[in-house]
């Protein structure tokens, strides 16, 4: 590969400008070579003007000098995909962090990069095609076992047109660098296929037959999400909330209990401590569906707040590209990005250095389209072999001051299918998950009695109205009917919308249990009660509440579950 080189002429923060004379691609990878110590810093070309190329450097630019050489490659910023991605922990540029730790110890070191996939590990390959078969991009040539999945070996999606299999490897053990197949097309071009290929992160990896409308609910086992504000496989949702409202806990719970094949966790510019919890706990937690450690279905992309900002921008794309790759194997993938605000801030930092005319709160004017393009990469698709598979994106947003009017939240709300707004008031009142039941919405149809949900919501809305009225006129000035409505809303909130993440049973609520409990509670909400006094009403609902809370903590269909159900029925008589 011919390498083009240039000379640095300006340095400002992590933006470096170089003078180049030959052909340079936008978004190509370049290396800034520090003449002082010979360290090469990875960077990306983000703007070309005349013979000046502006680059964002993925590392600290300390020690770079004007006149230092820049080596510019042909490749765009890419990830390498192939077997061995699952269970990995990557930084934003797909460097495996455990390997870096082995090489460098406690601290990350600038200029040290490591190959994302093991080149020596042998994978057991089973072919799915035979010589003479016609294939095209994203067709499955064979598979290797990767943890609990059949990892399909794909015809790289960048190949266009129809190809004929000329040669295919026999069943056996191979490394990712060995030739698995030779494909030829009509023109006589030959392509050698290995188990891995590179893909530029900013270009969506397509290679499916068609996009479908998301319709199958994605079960998270969180009642307020599944029943009230459902999400669908292939859909998108966002979780904005002020600090301390429990965004990250909600993401962690979702990554554990979501009924999905693969989870990609993108820790983007958030606390390292939170990733550590996932890193240390997932290998020991069991996936209830497969009985294997949760780690086996998880990929972690970890570019925490103190890691270089430019790599933070890349990390979100790295994550979505890996998710899209597993989608092409017929798997359902959930991408959890925490937090997209930090990613937007990285865009803002770079935009400022490029001296672009700013939009609102100094975010770049193209913020909305960048966010929209990202969320649009989520989709439910039909593959060429007829299988359906999906990528679902759930992104948290950390609005400044907890104010949802800010640009990132607003741009996100325009493009997502569901909005789970967290409120500080609920978090302060320890009502977790603190998803606001009045402000949040979802455009998807849920799996839990979707026809009945509006009536439950109606009670919440009216209960809230009564509660606001009560702050003005006091309890004395409220009619007993209104007061009972208020109690019903509070009761439903406490026993159904809130869920105890620290209780072994209550932390995950299966779909069938949700249906059962929800319809039982709906009966209570719609029942007419006649109480003599407000105190009596309050006492009754307290009693009911404590019973249902115990019910929530009893294992589904266990003896104690049935026993408590009996007590509830008794009380309601």
């Amino acid at each position, binding site marked *: 590969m011919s390498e083009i080189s240039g000379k640095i*002429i*300006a*340095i*400002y*923060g992590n933006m470096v400008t170089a003078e180049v004379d030959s052909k340079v691609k936008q978004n190509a990878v370049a290396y800034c070579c*520090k003449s*002082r110590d010979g360290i090469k810093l990875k960077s990306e070309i983000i703007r070309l003007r005349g013979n000046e190329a502006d680059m964002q450097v993925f590392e*600290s*630019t*300390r*020690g*770079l*000098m*004007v*006149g230092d050489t820049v080596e510019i490659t042909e490749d765009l910023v890419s990830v390498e995909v192939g077997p061995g991605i699952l269970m990995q*922990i990557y930084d934003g540029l797909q460097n495996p*962090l*455990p390997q*870096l*730790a082995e090489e*460098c*110890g*406690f*601290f*990350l*070191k*600038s200029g040290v990069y490591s190959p994302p996939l093991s080149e020596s590990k042998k994978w057991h390959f089973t072919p799915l095609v035979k010589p003479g078969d016609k294939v095209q991009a994203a067709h499955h040539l064979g598979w290797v076992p990767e943890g609990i999945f059949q990892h399909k070996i794909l015809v790289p999606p960048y190949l266009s047109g129809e190809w004929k299999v000329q040669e295919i490897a026999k069943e056996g053990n191979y490394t990712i660098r060995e030739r698995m197949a030779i494909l030829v097309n009509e023109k006589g071009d030959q392509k050698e296929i290995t188990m891995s290929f590179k893909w530029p992160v900013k270009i969506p990896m397509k290679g499916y037959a068609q996009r479908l409308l998301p319709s199958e609910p994605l079960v998270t086992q969180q009642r307020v999400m599944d029943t009230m504000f459902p999400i669908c496989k292939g859909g998108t949702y966002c979780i904005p909330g*002020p*600090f*301390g409202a429990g965004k990250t806990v909600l993401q962690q719970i979702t990554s554990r209990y979501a009924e999905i094949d693969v989870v990609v966790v993108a820790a983007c*510019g*958030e*606390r*390292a*401590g939170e*990733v*550590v919890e996932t*890193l*240390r706990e997932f290998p020991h937690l069991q996936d209830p569906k497969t009985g294997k450690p949760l780690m086996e279905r998880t990929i972690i992309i*970890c570019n*925490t*707040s*103190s*890691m270089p*900002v430019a790599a933070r921008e890349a990390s979100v794309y790295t994550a979505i590209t890996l998710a899209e790759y597993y989608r092409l194997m017929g798997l359902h993938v959930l991408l959890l990005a925490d937090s997209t605000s*930090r990613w937007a*801030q990285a865009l*803002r*930092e770079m935009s*400022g250095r490029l001296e672009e005319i*700013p939009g609102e*709160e*100094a*975010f770049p004017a193209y913020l909305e389209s960048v966010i929209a393009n990202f969320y649009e990469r989520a989709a439910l698709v039909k593959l060429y072999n007829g299988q359906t598979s999906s990528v679902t994106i759930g992104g948290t947003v*950390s609005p*400044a*001051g*907890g*104010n949802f009017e800010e640009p990132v939240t607003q741009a996100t709300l325009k493009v997502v299918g569901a909005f789970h707004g967290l409120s500080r008031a609920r978090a*302060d009142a320890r009502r977790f998950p603190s998803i606001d039941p009045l402000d949040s919405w979802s455009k998807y149809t849920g799996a839990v009695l979707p026809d009945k949900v509006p009536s439950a919501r109606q009670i919440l809305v009216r209960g809230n109205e009564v509660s606001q009225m009560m702050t003005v006129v006091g309890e004395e000035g409220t009619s007993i009917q209104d007061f009972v409505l208020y109690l019903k809303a509070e009761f439903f909130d406490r026993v159904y919308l809130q869920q105890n993440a620290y209780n072994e049973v209550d932390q995950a609520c299966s779909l069938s249990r949700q249906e059962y409990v929800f319809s039982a509670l709906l009966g209570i909400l719609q029942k007419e009660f006649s109480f003599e006094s407000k105190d009596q009403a309050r006492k009754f609902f307290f009693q009911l509440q404590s019973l249902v809370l115990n019910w929530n903590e009893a294992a589904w269909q266990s003896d104690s579950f049935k026993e408590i159900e009996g007590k509830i029925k008794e009380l309601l008589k």
Partner: protein
Amino acid sequence: MRTVYNKIDQITGNVVSLKAKDVAYEDLAVIEGERGVSLAQVIRINRDQVYLQVFAGTKGISNRDQVRFLGHSMEISFSENLMGRIFNGSGVPRDDRSPLSENMIEIGAPSVNPVKRIMPSRMIRTGIPMIDIFNSLVESQKLPIFSIPGEPYNTLLARIALQAEADIIVFGGMGLKYDDYLFFRNTFEKGGVMHRSIMFAHTAADPVVECLLVPDMVLAVAENFAVQHSKKVLVLLTDMTAFSDALKEISIIMEQIPSNRGYPGDLYSQLARRYEKAVDFEGRGSVTTLAVTTMPGDDVTHPVPDNTGYITEGQFYLRRGWIEPFGSLSRLKQLVNGKTRDDHRSIMTACIQLYAKCKEAREKQAMGFVMSSWDKKLLGYGKRFEQEMMDLKVNISLEKALDRCWQIMAEFFEPQEIGITEKLINQYWPKKNV
């Protein structure tokens, strides 16, 4: 011999620019003039034009002053000799003792690899019940103290320095009033912790931008003591709002587009890079950070406390002279308070719930409602609780503090009124003298 430049092209705010060659980004330079010597750092290079941020400010610098580049970025000497020393914001001794030049280390070094982090598991006892019982401080935690300017936050910080279980205390003062600087120095000396403390103090009288280096120097020293000497290091920073304001000043001079109330768009990253230095190094020592963040106008949505809240693992609110039990939060307390004494968690919940009810009763009282006997119990409890637990002067061990909680509760309530399981009541409820 390095080139000396004699011509400064431009002086704006605390930034000067000149034409120079072979200068690397973030290198240090020395500017010598009639006013003396001041340190500067390269913050932008555009072809041969170099922009320098002058730490001592540009007052009195002339366009013919001498500029000499040192050929390296900011470094600080690291050795045992640092103990008991006091430096200013440029790393120059403030204590009339000789400067240190052995074993220079880089400041602002790369971050810790997340996979090398471990789950925090050890509590740091401070002798302050509001911290120990209700929001335990955990080794490797980063916690801000949110406070309005008039609160005794520096007193609190000094008390934590004296009482906390730590091998080494590294103190970083930014925009300190001179009185406060003397207060810290005297308290450390009298309290007998000076021999294991290192102070970096930038006072309000010093040039504003000089405080920009303070957190980096403090954390570089702390990190090296933790990794190389396996020490348990406690980092105390006051006040991070002054630091952020200095960042704001520089970014405005550099004509960066401000994002929110004049603060630069990278405020979050700048703060995070420093706070994230709090780490428990497996098999070595640890760095724990407590940082005061004054909230202008008691407004938690101000960009500095707001961004800080997203970074840190909880926060202490200092209000009306004590650590506010509501709103204050140590996100890591669950990791340690199960291992102290079996009644710790129950006491934590019960006391706060009763205190919350006491506040409700006070509101009722203020509105002129009749106080029931239950309300009176709550009022009495609340008063005792404030005097004997919340007051910042209280200095007792965790166990004694838990016992005291039991006593206060027993004085006003019946055992079944406090919402603690029978098992614990039987074990700990103080027996009344008959």
